């Protein structure tokens, strides 16, 4: 039986959205603690290449995943050192890391171009759940990293909003001086959030090079790190909204391709330029940004108040 088009579309959207989702979840952690990380693109690239190299060397994709987590985390540690300890400008540090990561990943990957991955992530059907009509095909016939991303959304949501530690984390992002006086270790919290955020960005990169399009070519993230940063605003710093946003951002391209491939069967949609569709998520992001900025004045909608501001104990 052939699946209805909408099921195919949504199923593709889940795959296309997963690398964005990993990176966006990481960015949410980091920004919730008050550190803007614009190095996501570079961290994804380094994660993609390390995961790829480790998989080629070891023959096991889970080794690749661990390498990607480690590499993303190390890149983020540089960002944390610069922006938390040295209180450097977070925008500049992040941009520097993206450029650094692009170069580093190209250099590391030089000898690996054009080699296939020996052990790629293959779709695993989850018993029972994958039998659910439509939803089963859309959500539960993917590779294990997709399921990991579902778990991470729930875990991060619980940690950030339902635990004491999450409360501390948000306090650090809102008002580090107050948090400090409450005895919350501001620097440690920020370090932990930035580094785990970088690890997730690395994982997002590895999803591209090990599962989505298993290969390594230079610059293979093609700007997805930047999309993830936009996605965090779109999701108003909330993991639950990030998953929806990630699938919208991921699915739009695929929708455009399907409309083209359908030709006359797409009816009136065939006259909509595929290039126009690709702009939609960004237009939505700008609209959300406008709403967020005007709403923050009236009530709290999520922007961490100290986002982007370095914290200096002595200047209290």
């Amino acid at each position, binding site marked *: 039986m052939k699946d209805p088009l909408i099921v195919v579309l949504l199923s593709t959207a889940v795959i296309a959205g997963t690398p964005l989702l990993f990176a966006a979840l990481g960015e949410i952690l980091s920004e919730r603690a008050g550190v803007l990380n614009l190095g996501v693109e570079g961290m994804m690239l380094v994660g993609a290449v390390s995961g790829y190299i480790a998989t080629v060397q070891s023959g096991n994709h889970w080794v690749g995943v661990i390498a990607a987590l480690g590499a993303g985390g190390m890149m983020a540690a540089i960002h944390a050192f610069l922006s938390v300890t040295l209180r450097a400008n977070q925008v500049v540090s992040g941009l520097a890391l993206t450029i650094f990561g692009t170069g580093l990943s190209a250099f590391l990957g*030089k000898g690996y171009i054009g080699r296939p991955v020996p052990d790629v992530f293959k779709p695993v059907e989850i018993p029972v759940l994958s039998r659910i009509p439509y939803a089963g095909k859309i959500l539960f016939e993917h590779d294990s990293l997709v399921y990991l991303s579902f778990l991470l959304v729930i875990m991060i949501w619980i940690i950030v909003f339902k635990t004491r530690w999450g409360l501390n984390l948000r306090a650090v992002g809102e008002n580090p001086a107050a948090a400090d006086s409450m005895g919350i270790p501001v620097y440690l919290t920020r370090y932990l959030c930035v580094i785990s955020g970088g690890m997730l960005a690395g994982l997002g990169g590895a999803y591209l090079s090990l599962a989505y399009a298993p290969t390594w070519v230079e610059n293979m993230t093609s700007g997805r790190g930047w999309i993830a940063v936009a996605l965090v605003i779109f999701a108003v710093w909330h993991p639950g909204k990030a998953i929806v946003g990630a699938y919208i951002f991921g699915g739009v391209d695929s929708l455009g*391709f399907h409309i083209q491939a359908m030709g006359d069967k797409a009816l009136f949609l065939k006259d909509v330029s595929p290039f126009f569709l690709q702009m939609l998520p960004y237009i939505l992001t700008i609209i959300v940004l406008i709403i967020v900025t005007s709403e923050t004045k009236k009530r709290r909608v999520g922007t961490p108040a100290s986002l982007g501001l370095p914290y200096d104990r002595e200047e209290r």
Partner: protein
Amino acid sequence: MYKKVLALITVLLMAVAVFAGCGGGADKASSGQQGEDKSQEAEKTKVAFIYVGPAGDAGWSYAHDLGRKYLEENVSGIEVTPPLESVPEGADAEQVIENLVQKGNKIIFATSFGYMDAMEKVAKKHPDVTFLHCSGYKVLDNMGTYFGRIYQPRYLSGIVAGKTTKSNTIGYVAAFPIPEVVRGINAFTLGVRSVNPDAKVKVVWTNTWYDPAKEKDAAKSLLEQGADVVAQHQDTPGPMQAAEEAGKFGVSYNSDMRQFAPKAVLTGPVWNWGPYYAETVQAILDGTWKSEQYWGPIGDGIVDLAPYGDMVTDDVKALVDAKEREIVDGTWDVFTGPIKDNTGKERVAAGAKLTDQEMLEMLWFVEGVDGIIPQE
């Protein structure tokens, strides 16, 4: 204050790490060469290359880099300097090319269209240096152009696709709606329909040369719409991987992509710059080179078909060989009439042939293409 210094040092360390890393390989290579060849160094002609992308793109620049290595191995008496990668097109390239001349390079290859004006300016100033520009149209006494008739192997790959399809729907993942890509789609479609007049070629535009994940999604949408062979004018193996996963077939591009999709890849047009680079440099060294606009046919080996996948039968190979011979003999070329466009209008009369100029400006689809050319 000390924090600022520390920050500066960290950034410097990162920069040093990158440069040391990138430069390391090249340094070793060149110092090794100097050791061996010190005695003849003065006589060696220096040859330089500029790429628009990274040599590791596994596509366009990668193919040129393979050609550069072939040149290095097959022509003696030259020193091939390390390539300059990801050089921006346009006015900035002038500085880069001028700099190469100052460093003593006598032969310079620029491998992208956008270097044309910059190269022309520098070439006018340095008549003793030979300049070669890929895919452009400006020629001076010391500046030639070169390109390959990739549409010829595309036509041949179309024959293989047309013989393979069962659903009579073939997908084509295309990058940008420009004449080069449109010409490729048309040549491919003519090839398909020469052996299978009922088949249609569906086109999807991706608006990128280079994004493995997006290209794969585009191919998936075509497979979903009933295509059982997917061809590509893209630089990554993404579409081939989509075909492999769906248990369908693919026609690759740029280089042999069978390793990424061994059960799917039938064949595909490939670039093979090496022999051209070797012959041209040798001719310049011998003093027999003359400036020209070179658009190399398949007979010269500059373009070719990738090795066939195991599923391609001998009958199909024989069909392709026969057509290839006609092209090499010059008795026939791809855009020989009668050819209709996909609105039914006759574009090439029976027996007529498109001129090179008409091919270079082609922005219409032949009959059998199912798709639109987006206009601005």
